[in-house]
Structures are given as structure tokens and as C-alpha cells.
């Protein structure tokens, strides 16, 4: 290489190294500046909090709400579950100020007009979905709120998740909160798939944070500690991208969801009982104020149904019945003639009498009491002055039981009263619901005990018991003397696995002997075959052993009449079925409106009882006839599907494909289908005219 080239190379090399050196010095200076700045910040720089909060990792504490446990019936059918409901609100002033500020070329006005046009289309959608206002009304409300600067407008009512998705797809709302103004507030609510069935028994919790007796109703309230679960805690922070994530450096406690409860209720029996009472009361709405029914499993004491229906006391024009007050456990009243069974049991157990023993009729007169008109009729019809204990029970004669009570317990009334405690009729035992009323039984040792109290107790007055006490007592008779404790909760479960078992328990192993129980069953069967229950229960689907009862309801200090002189009654029918091998015990009690006349236990309550018996027996094929191999088949009439009008295609939407195809082909049409599930769309449409042979296409979903 010659000298000139060498010089050039050296010069080029020098320039390059100078450039590189210059770049290096620049980096070095930057390093010193940055280092000095970092040291300065660390040493004592205090940034403005209004700005700094955007740069600090924003960790906030979030409480994790547990999912409330579900409630099931005995067969695992869902009675109560938690799902959120949503309330949509709208900020009508979104972008209003921005549009107002954009004055160049009228852009702001144009954008505002566009926004209002979308609001109009939104209004049409809202009107179509909520059906509470017209589209115009919605639009006027939105525009008025926008002009008045109102940032909160409630839209419609609470909606479920599916409806929320439909709302979110509407014009304007599909642009989000900051352009469309849509806001959503989620609220956890309890859903009850079976509507009003057993609502009072299932219950609710008004205010979870404040647990007192008035807030916690039914099973939801009593078992809130099981259903509620435990809250969790997590800390959240913002990432550099302004997204929220969990702060893994902080404490995290997961929420523990509530446990599930499997009740003893059978929702089909509940439905049967509910419908039975409603159908009987429906035509007698002027007479009946409320009614209750309890169906109990004989062997275990499990409550299969508990119905409590009452009218809206605030609105006398409302004829509907609502599950709002638990009569079955909270109404402690004089039971009337159904209590005679306790007197009869005591007499039989003590060996004082037999069913066929007879006593003098004495024209129905017991000193201290009004005469019994039933005995006058008996004496006149039978031309005799003696009556058997059985017949006295059949016709529910007050005279017979007062006579027997005084004859055998007059010297020692305490013995008869003690028997009642033995039958647990004087005890408020532990039960699965709050509000179980205390019964009242007078004591011969009390200063208020009078000479007529024994006679009153014998026929179900001067004592106060709840319908639950009564059905438990009768259940013990059905169970051959073994008194089972009524209960509503079978197990507590978590994700299908049993956590704890509640199950049956015994209140009293033997309130009477089997022989006494059998004797009482016979007597009660006579009531339904020949006595006061014959009219309603004589031809039920199975034999019933029961007792009617009619009693006036005491009105506190004013005796049996209210201030207007009106009397209120309670009519009861209680019994068990099938009488030979009892499976269920049931009580139906109805309460009359004041001043509407006597509500006899042998009328509406017995009618409702009969419907319940028939409904339960009909549902269970184990009660059906058995066709043996050598038997002849029973004759059956073929049922025919309701024929469609000739030449008009019937509506098969909602049916399964097998049913839809069967119906249409029966009418001569050809059927093709696509998809799976139930018929969603049919073509030609229902109601169209079409000749046989036409192809009907079904779309299943």
C-alpha cells in the first residue's frame, strides 16, 4: 500500500474512531445524568400524589363472595339456587360535552344527531325486551335526561343473564359504558324454580348481615350458617398495561362456597297438596282466610310436604292465596275434636274402657256444660239411652268424652294431663324451622284450674297446640305407638357428597302399646267409613283412618267473639293412609274468616285431604293392581290424540322430535327434520293449510 493510501486509510480510521468515541461519550454522559437522577429520586424526591398514584402499583383489597349453597328436595330436585340478576342503568350524558365542544364544521351537531338516532333504535329494542314502555316513551326519557344532565337512569326491571346479553347487543349499548352510557349492576338473588311451592318452608334471608329472628325465615334462615359459606380475600393490582391481576405477593384466601341442603320434601307431593288446598278454597274465598297442610312419612317422621296459604290481609279484594305465614308451626290454638283421640288413647292405655263399651246417654248432659245435640239425635233415631264409645268417637260426641274424662280422671285429673306430656303435646321440641310455637296445657296444680277444665281438655279446648304437634301425635298411632320427631333436613352435602346426616330420630319410643294403636286405627277408620268423614273420604283411592275437628278460635281476652261479635273457626282433618299399612300421615287445617259461619273439619279440610290422598296414591304405581301372568289383561280404552283441523298443520313447536313426527305423520304429512333437541321452527308454519302428503320441515334446537 503506498503512502497516500495509507494516509487515507489512517484518516478514514481516525474519523470512524472519532464518531464511535463521540457516541461512547454521549452514552457515558447519559449514564451519569440517569445515575444522578436515580440517586436524587431515591434520596428524597416526593412526587405529586395526584400523578404518582398512576405509577404506584395499585393494590386493592377485594372480598370474594362465596356462592350460597343450594336446597334440594329428597330426590335431588333443585328447590333454591343463587344466580345474579342484573339492573341496567344508563348515563344519558355520555359524550354530550365533547359533542358540544366540537364546533368546527358542525361536527359536534352531526355527532349528536347520530347519537340520538342510535338512542332511538336503542329505545325500540328496550321497549321490545322490557315491554313496560313504548319506544317513544323510552326515547323521550333518554333525551330529557340528557338535556337535564342526569347521569343515572334506571332501565326496565331486573333481568337475567340471557336478557342482559340481548340488551348489550342493542345499538348504543354495544359501544360500552363510555360511548353508550350503559352500566350494569349485578345482584345475587335467590331463584326458586318451583315458584311459590313451599316458599314459606324454604324461606329467605332478608338481610344477611343482621341475623335476628325476623330476618331469617324458613330453612334459608335456620340453616344460613350452612348455606352461606365463608368469604375470601384477595388483593388486586394494575399492571403496566392498566389491566387488573391478582397480587401474588399479598395474602390470598379463597372463598369457601356454602354447603347444599337436601330436604325431606317431595316436591311432587308438595304440588299435589298445594293444588288440593287451592282448588278447594278457590270457590270459597269468602269463607277461608288461610290453610295449612303437613304430610309426614310414617316410618321416619320426615316431612314430605308443608303447605301454608293465607290471604293478603292488607287487600281484601285480592282472592289469591300466598305462602307468607307458617300456620303449621306458629299457630298454637285449640284443636277441637281431633284432640279426642288423645283422651281415647289414655283411656285405652289405662285399660279403663274398650271401644265397644257403652255408657248412658243422659240426654247429652254433663254438669257445667251445654248439652250435646248429637246425643239427642242419637237417642231419637236409635231409641236407646246407651251409646258405645266407638259410636261416640264416630259422631265426635263432646258428651261421650267429657263423661269418660270425668268418670275415670275426675278424681285425679293430673294423670290425664301427664299423659298429654307423654304424647309430647306439651313440649316445644327442637325443630328445623324458627318460630315453632309453644303449646299450652293447663295444669290441675295451677290456681287458674277450674272444674270444667278437665271436660274442656278432653274435647280439645283449654289446650293450645300447633298442627305439627297434632300430626306428630297421629303419626305415632300410624307407627304403632312409636313417635318420630318431625324433621325437614335429611343431609348436608358438598358437591354431591354427604357432609353430615340429620335423619330420623325418636321423640318417644312408645306412647302407647301396639294393641292400643290398632284399636285407635279401627276407630279412626270408622270415622271415614261411617262417621263425620264418610261423606268426603268414603270412596277415596285407599282406606283412610282419620278424625275431623271443628273449633272456635279464641280472640284473646274477649273470648271467642271479636269486637264486632264475629266468631272465627278452624276446621281440621287429620289421619293416615293407607289405613292397613300406613305410609303417610297428613293434617289439613283451615281457618275461616270471622263471621262467615262454621268451618267444619268434615267439609273443606276433609275434601282437600281426599284430593291429597288420591293424588299421592295415583302417582305411585306400587299402589296399583298387579297383573299376574295368569290374569286377563284389564280392558283399556285407546286414547286418541286430539285431531287437528283437516288440512291445517298443527303446532308442534316445543315438542320432542318423536312426538312431533308421530302427530304429523298420523295426519298424513311427511316429515323431515334437522338438528337435535326440541322443535324450534316448523315450515310450513302452524295453522297453514296443507293437503296430506305435504312435507313439513322441522328445525330442532
Amino acid at each position: 500500500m503506498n503512502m497516500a493510501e495509507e494516509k487515507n486509510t489512517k484518516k478514514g480510521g481516525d474519523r470512524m474512531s472519532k464518531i464511535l468515541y463521540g457516541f461512547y461519550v454521549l452514552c457515558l454522559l447519559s449514564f451519569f445524568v440517569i445515575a444522578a437522577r436515580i440517586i436524587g429520586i431515591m434520596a428524597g424526591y416526593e412526587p405529586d400524589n395526584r400523578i404518582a398514584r398512576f405509577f404506584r402499583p395499585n393494590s386493592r383489597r377485594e372480598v370474594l363472595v362465596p356462592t350460597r349453597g343450594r336446597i334440594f328436595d329428597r330426590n335431588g330436585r333443585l328447590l333454591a339456587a343463587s344466580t345474579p340478576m342484573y339492573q341496567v342503568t344508563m348515563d344519558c350524558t355520555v359524550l354530550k360535552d365533547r359533542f358540544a365542544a366540537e364546533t368546527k364544521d358542525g361536527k359536534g351537531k352531526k355527532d349528536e344527531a347520530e347519537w340520538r338516532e342510535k338512542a332511538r333504535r336503542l329505545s325500540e329494542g328496550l321497549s321490545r325486551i322490557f315491554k313496560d314502555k313504548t319506544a317513544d316513551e323510552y326515547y323521550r326519557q333518554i333525551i330529557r335526561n340528557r338535556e337535564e344532565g342526569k347521569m343515572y337512569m334506571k332501565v326496565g326491571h331486573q333481568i337475567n343473564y340471557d336478557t342482559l346479553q340481548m340488551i348489550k347487543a342493542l345499538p348504543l349499548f354495544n359501544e360500552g359504558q363510555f360511548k353508550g352510557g350503559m352500566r350494569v349492576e349485578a345482584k345475587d338473588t335467590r331463584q326458586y324454580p318451583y315458584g311459590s311451592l313451599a316458599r314459606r318452608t324454604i324461606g329467605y334471608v332478608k338481610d344477611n348481615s343482621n341475623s335476628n329472628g325476623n330476618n331469617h325465615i324458613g330453612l334459608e334462615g335456620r340453616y344460613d350458617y350452612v348455606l352461606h359459606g365463608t368469604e375470601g380475600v384477595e388483593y388486586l393490582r394494575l399492571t403496566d398495561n392498566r389491566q387488573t391481576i391478582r397480587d401474588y405477593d399479598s395474602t390470598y384466601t379463597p372463598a369457601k362456597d356454602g354447603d347444599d341442603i337436601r330436604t325431606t320434601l317431595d316436591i311432587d307431593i308438595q304440588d299435589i297438596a298445594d293444588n288440593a288446598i287451592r282448588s278447594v278454597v278457590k270457590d270459597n274465598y269468602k269463607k277461608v282466610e288461610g290453610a295449612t297442610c303437613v304430610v309426614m312419612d310414617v316410618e321416619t317422621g320426615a316431612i314430605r310436604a308443608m303447605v301454608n296459604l293465607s290471604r293478603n290481609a292488607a287487600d281484601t279484594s285480592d282472592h289469591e292465596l300466598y305462602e307468607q305465614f307458617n300456620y303449621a308451626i306458629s299457630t298454637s290454638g285449640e284443636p277441637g275434636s281431633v284432640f279426642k283421640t288423645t283422651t281415647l288413647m289414655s283411656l285405652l292405655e289405662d285399660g279403663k274402657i274398650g271401644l265397644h263399651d257403652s255408657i248412658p246417654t243422659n240426654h247429652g248432659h254433663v254438669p257445667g256444660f251445654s248439652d250435646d245435640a248429637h246425643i239427642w239425635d242419637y237417642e231419637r233415631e236409635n231409641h236407646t239411652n246407651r251409646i258405645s264409645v266407638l259410636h261416640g268417637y264416630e259422631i265426635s260426641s263432646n258428651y261421650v268424652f267429657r263423661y269418660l274424662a270425668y268418670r275415670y280422671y275426675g278424681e285425679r285429673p293430673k294423670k290425664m294431663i301427664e299423659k298429654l306430656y307423654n304424647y309430647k303435646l306439651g313440649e316445644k321440641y327442637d325443630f328445623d324451622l324458627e318460630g315453632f310455637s309453644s303449646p299450652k296445657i293447663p295444669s290441675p296444680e295451677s290456681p287458674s284450674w277450674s272444674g270444667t277444665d278437665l271436660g274442656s281438655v278432653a274435647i280439645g279446648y283449654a289446650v293450645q297446640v300447633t298442627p305439627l304437634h297434632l300430626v306428630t301425635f297421629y303419626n305415632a298411632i300410624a307407627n304403632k305407638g312409636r313417635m318420630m320427631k318431625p324433621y325437614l333436613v335429611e343431609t348436608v352435602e358438598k358437591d354431591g357428597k354427604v357432609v353430615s346426616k340429620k335423619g330420623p330420630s325418636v321423640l318417644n319410643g312408645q306412647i302407647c302399646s301396639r294393641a292400643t294403636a290398632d284399636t285407635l286405627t279401627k276407630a279412626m277408620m270408622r270415622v271415614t267409613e261411617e262417621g263425620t268423614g264418610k261423606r268426603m273420604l268414603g270412596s277415596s283411592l285407599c282406606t283412610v283412618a282419620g278424625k275431623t275437628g271443628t273449633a272456635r278460635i279464641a280472640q284473646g281476652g274477649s273470648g271467642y267473639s271479636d269486637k264486632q261479635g264475629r266468631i272465627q273457626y278452624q276446621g281440621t282433618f287429620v289421619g293416615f293412609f293407607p289405613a292397613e299399612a300406613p305410609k303417610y300421615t297428613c293434617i289439613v287445617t283451615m281457618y275461616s274468616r270471622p263471621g262467615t259461619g262454621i268451618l267444619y273439619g268434615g267439609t273443606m279440610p276433609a275434601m282437600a285431604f281426599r284430593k291429597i290422598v288420591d293424588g299421592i296414591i295415583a302417582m305411585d304405581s306400587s299402589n296399583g293392581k298387579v297383573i299376574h301372568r295368569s290374569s286377563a289383561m284389564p280392558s283399556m280404552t285407546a286414547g286418541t290424540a286430539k285431531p287437528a283441523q283437516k288440512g291445517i298443520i298443527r303446532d308442534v313447536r316445543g315438542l320432542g322430535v318423536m312426538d312431533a313426527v308421530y302427530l304429523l305423520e298420523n295426519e298424513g304429512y311427511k316429515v323431515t327434520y334437522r338438528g337435535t333437541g326440541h322443535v324450534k321452527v316448523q315450515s310450513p308454519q302452524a295453522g297453514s293449510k296443507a293437503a296430506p302428503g305435504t312435507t313439513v320441515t322441522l328445525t330442532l334446537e
Partner: protein
Amino acid sequence: MAEGRRGLKGILSNVLRSILQGNFLQRIHADKVFPQIIYIFLLAWLAIFLNIQIEKTMAKVEKNKEKLEETEIHHAQKTVEYVSLGRLSTVKELLEEKGSEVGIPDKPAARIDK
């Protein structure tokens, strides 16, 4: 002592001079460990990068949690709707609406003895 200070002063001035000249690393014979220095920078970059990716994934997890929650809500609501159709009275009404003669039994079914 003065020599010590001069030594310290000398070291510092040498360091400063070599930094300005751009051959500091060479003077401390750091060129032998230059790949390790680069490796450390690479690790630091990787740690920051992975941290960012983790945060992105965690953000996705939170979004997926919301989607899962929505699916669970949807499932729960559908379950409630489905169960409500199983009510005896509701089935009876639906059958009547469809014009069916099938209804709730009014007597128990006969059983064939096997």
C-alpha cells in the same frame, strides 16, 4: 498516609481517565469476562421480559375467570329454567296447551308381575 492518598487519588484518576478514553473494561481485564457481562444483561432483560409475559398471562387468567363465571351464571340460570319445567302443575298445563289427552294419573298404574 500521603502516599496512600496519592495511591487512592491515582487510582481514581486512572479510572476516570480510562472511562473517558473508553478502555476501562480493558484496563481492569474485564475483556476476559465480557461474555459473562453480556450474559448478565441478557438475564436481566429476560427477567423483565418474562415478568411482562407473566403479567399478560395473569391478565388473561383474570379475563378467563370472568368468562368462566359468566358461563357458570348462564348454566345456573338455564338449570333453574329447566327445573321449573319439571313441576307437576306446569307439565299438566303444557300438555293441556298442546291439546294432549295425557294428564296426571287419576289412579295408580297397574303393574305386570314379572
